[in-house]
């Protein structure tokens, strides 16, 4: 890594108040590290998201693995906000249960987050605003007058805006980060803006970098270098919503419509400004019913379209999605899940819309449901959704959630030259005898503008219809058409690959998950194996229909434990567990669920699965009690929530 300091240490601002003395506890970790969790805690106007994002981007550029975690900042300025970056030189799958390094801007940031700091971890705090309990000898304390020094560095007008970049400089020093790459990232970020903004940012960065932190902290750290494998592709860094939006673009989706709601909005914002560049269009509709109807209009016209929302808006779209199922119209519906029901927990994470996706709506209305497991998977699942929607002329749900939407990961750049799909509608004339709802075939929607050689034009209909799309009340036809719509999902199930089992291929316990819990479930299996358990994990992307052959995997394990972020339900099983039990009639399928609105921590999963406390090998102290429930053993929910939910987002 680049060792050249931006400013020699002797240039450090004079008169900087001396930092608090270290707690006396020496920081014993090695200088060469391969994994670090850095948590930044402040208020929403402090720009800690962008500081964290710079770190994530830098890691991505350095071919390191990275994952972030954030709370959605409140729209009302001043709400508490945090951003956590985990940088690793191996495989990083979860954003980390505990932080190695906590930056606290305010007293509340310190109080709310100190429980997440690992024993022996470093608390870096703004000594202008925070008074930590130095008697707590578990941590290493580094007090820096962040506010004062930032104001000093930038002059009075900027106030303390720039603290985030100051901290970035400080972190760059402590972790020996590549300063040149970081500076390039900063100037790229502000490119096109007033030059003075770039200069101000650089000044703040240099002030942070030049701070003599070495006097307090015994040493600096350095990430082990990762050499890019020969022929490996560069990494790109983005959040889950960006990955869905760009995945849709790669998949040839050029039209869509939506209505704003957290945490879906950024997808529609991206598509609204990006699609016109590709000759397409995204429309902000008057409401979600309008949005799904517009999207169906686009699909009808020959361009596979997307709509999306979070739970409340998906509830509104339900009738039209049923129409898409009946009329056999291709459509992609994104549900970026948050806590429900109703307005629920707008900025927290939950996986409680699975049944709504599969069953939401009246009548037998088959549709496809996919769930993305990582940010990278958000990109590829969008492509898979488009493929299925076109091939089977059907509505397809993409389930994501708050945690995927807001976290940033680096992943191998997709090979676009192999992925891009041409969106043009097929207007070639259709031969005589064409039937839009041919009983023998999988329906293929024909867009207007295609000539029908026999002069008979197809209708799409929400009424039960005959093969030409005309209404029928015939019981025979309703049975045949209901079966036709169901059979195409059975056909799809045949072509879905069976997911690979991670860890033990047979044994005592199989963890099963779906969606954003992939990382912590995988890490839980890994940790338990290290401690001698015979355990594997399986993650589902295609949830409805399920791939064929899962029963063969289930047969190899004594317990099947489905881990998901939703309630255990009236009968003691979470939503996926309920479906798997119904599908396989398998009594050994159990459930571990939770509803605290936060992502799973590895330890929570293990404690839920094995009903005993788990400390990892590194001797991490026990985490504060988190509400957790297994089937029949649900504990009372801890009402004193550790994290503050920002208000002002609906």
């Amino acid at each position, binding site marked *: 890594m680049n060792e050249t300091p931006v400013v020699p240490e002797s240039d450090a601002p004079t008169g900087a108040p001396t930092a608090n003395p270290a707690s006396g506890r020496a920081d014993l970790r090695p200088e060469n590290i391969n994994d670090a969790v850095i948590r930044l805690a402040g208020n929403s106007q402090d720009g800690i998201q962008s500081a964290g994002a710079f770190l994530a981007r830098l890691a991505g550029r350095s071919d390191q693995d990275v994952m972030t975690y954030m709370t959605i900042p409140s729209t009302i300025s001043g709400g508490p906000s945090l951003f956590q970056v985990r940088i690793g030189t191996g495989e990083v799958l979860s954003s980390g249960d505990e932080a190695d390094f906590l930056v606290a801007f305010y007293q509340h940031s310190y109080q709310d987050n100190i429980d997440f700091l690992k024993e022996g971890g470093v608390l870096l705090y703004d000594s202008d605003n925070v008074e930590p309990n130095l008697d707590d000898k578990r941590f290493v304390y580094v007090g820096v007058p962040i506010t004062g020094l930032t104001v000093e560095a930038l002059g009075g007008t900027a106030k303390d805006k720039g603290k985030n970049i100051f901290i970035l400089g400080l972190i760059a020093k402590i972790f020996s980060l590549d300063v040149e790459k970081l500076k390039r990232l900063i100037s790229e970020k502000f490119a096109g803006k007033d030059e003075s903004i770039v200069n101000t940012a650089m000044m703040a960065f240099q002030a942070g970098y030049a701070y003599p932190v070495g006097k307090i902290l015994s040493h600096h750290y350095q990430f082990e270098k990762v050499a890019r494998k020969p022929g490996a592709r560069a990494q790109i860094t983005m959040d889950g919503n960006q990955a869905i939006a760009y995945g849709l673009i790669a998949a040839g989706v050029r039209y869509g419509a939506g209505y704003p709601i957290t945490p879906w909005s950024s997808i529609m914002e991206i598509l609204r400004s990006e699609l016109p560049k590709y000759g397409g269009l995204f429309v902000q509709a008057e409401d979600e019913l309008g949005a799904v109807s517009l999207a169906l209009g686009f699909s009808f016209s020959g361009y596979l379209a997307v709509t999306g929302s979070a739970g409340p808006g998906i509830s509104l779209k339900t009738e039209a999605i049923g129409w898409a199922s009946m009329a056999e119209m291709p459509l992609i519906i994104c549900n970026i899940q948050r806590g429900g029901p109703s307005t629920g927990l707008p900025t927290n994470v939950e996986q409680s819309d699975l049944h709504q996706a599969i069953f939401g709506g009246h009548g037998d209305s088959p549709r496809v449901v996919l769930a993305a497991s990582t940010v990278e998977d958000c990109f590829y699942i969008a492509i898979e959704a488009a493929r299925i929607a076109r091939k089977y002329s059907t509505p397809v749900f993409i389930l994501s959630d708050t945690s995927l939407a807001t976290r940033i990961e680096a992943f191998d750049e997709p090979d676009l030259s192999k992925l891009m799909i041409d969106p043009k509608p097929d207007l070639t004339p259709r031969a005589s005898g064409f039937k839009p709802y041919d009983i023998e075939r999988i329906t293929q929607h024909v867009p207007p503008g295609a000539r029908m050689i026999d002069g008979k034009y197809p209708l799409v209909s929400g009424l039960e219809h005959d093969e030409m799309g*005309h209404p029928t009340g015939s019981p025979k036809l309703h049975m045949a058409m209901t079966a036709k719509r169901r059979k195409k999902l059975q056909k799809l199930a045949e072509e879905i690959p069976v997911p690979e089992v991670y860890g033990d291929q047979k044994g005592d316990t199989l963890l099963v998950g779906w969606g954003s819990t992939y990382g912590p479930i995988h890490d839980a299996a890994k940790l338990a194996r290290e401690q001698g358990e015979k355990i594997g994990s399986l993650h589902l992307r295609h949830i409805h229909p399920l791939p064929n052959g899962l029963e063969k995997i289930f047969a190899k394990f004594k317990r099947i434990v489905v881990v998901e972020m939703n309630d255990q339900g009236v009968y003691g099983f979470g939503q996926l567990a309920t479906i798997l039990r119904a599908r396989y009639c398998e009594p050994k399928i159990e459930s571990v669920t939770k509803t605290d609105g936060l992502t799973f921590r590895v330890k929570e999963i293990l404690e839920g699965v094995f009903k005993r406390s788990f400390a990892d090998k590194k001797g991490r102290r026990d985490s504060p009690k988190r509400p957790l429930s297994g089937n029949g053993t649900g504990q009372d929910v801890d009402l004193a929530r550790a994290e503050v939910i920002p208000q002002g987002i609906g």
Partner: protein
Amino acid sequence: MSETTTATPPAEIPREKLTKKAITADHPTWCPGCGDFAVLASYYKVIEKRQLDHEKIVTLAGIGCSSRFPYFVNGFGAHFIHGRAVPLASGISLARPDLNVFLFGGDGDGFSIGGNHLEHGARKNINLVYFIMDNFVYGLTKKQTSPTSPIGFKSKTDPTGAIDMPVNPMKKLISAGASFVARTHATQVNHMIQMIERAMDHPGFSVIECLSECVEFFPDVFDPADPRKGGSFEVIQERKWDNTPEDEMRHDVTDELAAYKLAQLPFPGVFGVFYQSDRPTKNALEKKWIESSREKTGNASDLELLQKTFDRMK
């Protein structure tokens, strides 16, 4: 719908003259005597007269007796869900300027459950023709009060007579920003055809309210505007701009306030074009934005564009 007239048919397939027979599908399921038959007949006439390309006619509807319309037309079409056909039609119109988008529906479909969509379709000035068969009642569900039922109308949901003030369709449409607002009567076929044609020729959200009798559940209600039943069908005299003193007395269709005054007249009121404005359509505005966005990219290919975006994320 002025942007929609150019057609580029595949040269190989010869095109026959579009006849009424070619565009007729199922026999209508309406009750004998229902006003909607005449609307269908007028639609056939217009299509025949204009000789539109068969594959570029799109007939859409929501739910209701009137909304059964697409089944009776042999052409591309969709029978959608109750009240949401305006955004469906908007999607088609925005993505495919080459198509002729016709939307049919009833008073409940358009002014009640679909009221918000109607307002926003109008506000956005989406280029399409929307024909509303207003029978002052819910026909398909058999005689409940509709948003246009007059006060005192005895329905199954108001057995002692409707009490809620009815919607005034002309006022609602004008204030929502519809750029072509007209009113006609199903017994006046020539007038109806004229209105449909003018709506087609108008670029923008063109709405026609047509009094169309439900013989089953609200018979004779429109007789006061039917000369054959002793009523009078009073047509709006539009300004000809011929500098004559009589012209001063005529209606200026671009005058919103004057249109509003006409809409105030007591039932059965007047018929014809109430309001017309040539403000830009969403279709045109979005097209402009798309074109300038494409230009800014140097008309790059899809692959180049997305690759560039990814390069910025490295």
